[in-house]
């Protein structure tokens, strides 16, 4: 058996029958992974909906106490990053590794902007005693009252339910944030490979796979934004 390194731009690995077969197999693997991502976040979303049914008022109070303008800004940042990522895949498929590299860099910068905005949101909430762990939970009720649309909500419900909202908020946006971090790592890997001109119109599986991952992260935020910040 030959041990010579395959140039993947023009040839397939020896255990595949063709470049197309190898590409399709790799992409199907990524799609199966995407299905498991949907189900992993799905468990948290199911928890959100079940507790929302039981403790509706405190979800309103919790949602109102978040800064929806920052949430909307982050939504736009992520949508734009999805656009640049999709266009990076297009350019890679056309063989323009240089253009694709620029687009992936813009995508990564958007990811960093997202995390910086999230950092300011998290530190503000922790400052007001709204982090439900590490003995930091000490909610500043004046802060909450100043934010919510109808203060009477607070009179008949227990602050423990507000804590439940913040458990879900930090768990769901936190897990999403970890996905953003992993995405940045993947994009650095892609940038390195684009810089070395490793892709061709016949071989672009890695860029496409990272793209699919990035779009799923965007889709999860598309649901998190209205559920957490708006309603």
């Amino acid at each position: 058996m030959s041990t010579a390194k395959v140039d993947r731009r023009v040839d397939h690995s020896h255990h595949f029958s063709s470049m197309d077969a190898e590409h399709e197999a790799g992409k199907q693997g990524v799609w199966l992974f995407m299905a498991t991502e949907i189900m992993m976040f799905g468990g948290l979303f199911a928890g959100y909906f079940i507790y929302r049914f039981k403790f509706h008022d405190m979800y309103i109070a919790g949602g109102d106490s978040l800064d929806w303008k920052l949430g909307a800004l982050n939504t736009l940042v992520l949508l734009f990053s999805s656009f640049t990522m999709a266009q990076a895949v297009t350019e890679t498929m056309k063989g323009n590794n240089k253009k694709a590299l620029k687009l992936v860099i813009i995508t990564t910068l958007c990811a960093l902007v997202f995390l910086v905005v999230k950092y300011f949101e998290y530190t503000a909430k922790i400052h007001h005693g709204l982090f439900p762990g590490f003995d930091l939970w000490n909610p500043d009720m004046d802060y909450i009252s100043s934010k919510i649309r109808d203060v009477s909500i607070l009179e008949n419900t227990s602050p423990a339910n507000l804590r439940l909202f913040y458990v879900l908020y930090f768990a769901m946006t936190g897990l999403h944030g970890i996905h953003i971090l992993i995405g940045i790592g993947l994009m650095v890997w892609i940038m390195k490979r684009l810089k070395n001109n490793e892709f061709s119109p016949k071989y672009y599986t890695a860029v496409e796979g990272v793209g699919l991952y990035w779009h799923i992260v965007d889709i999860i935020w598309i649901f998190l934004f209205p559920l957490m910040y708006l309603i």
Partner: protein
Amino acid sequence: MSGHHIVELKTNVTTFIVLVCLTILTVLTAKFVDLGDGNLVLAMAIASVKASVVLLWFMHLKYDGLVNRVAALCGIFFLALLIGISYLDLFFR
């Protein structure tokens, strides 16, 4: 093979603009239209349309083979089962 359909810049730009418009619609309906519990349903409906747009155009499912569509639908199907049956329990217990 279905693998090599190239999505042009124009399509990507249109997709992005549609997504931004739907985001604005989400904010406007949630902030300025009071439908009570209907706000949750409406926001989820718009978010589902947005997710579908991302799946079909940015993630190329529109041009993709059956196997990948089935993989995506499997994830969504089992999520629907999880939430659906949990809600059946809550409503009818």
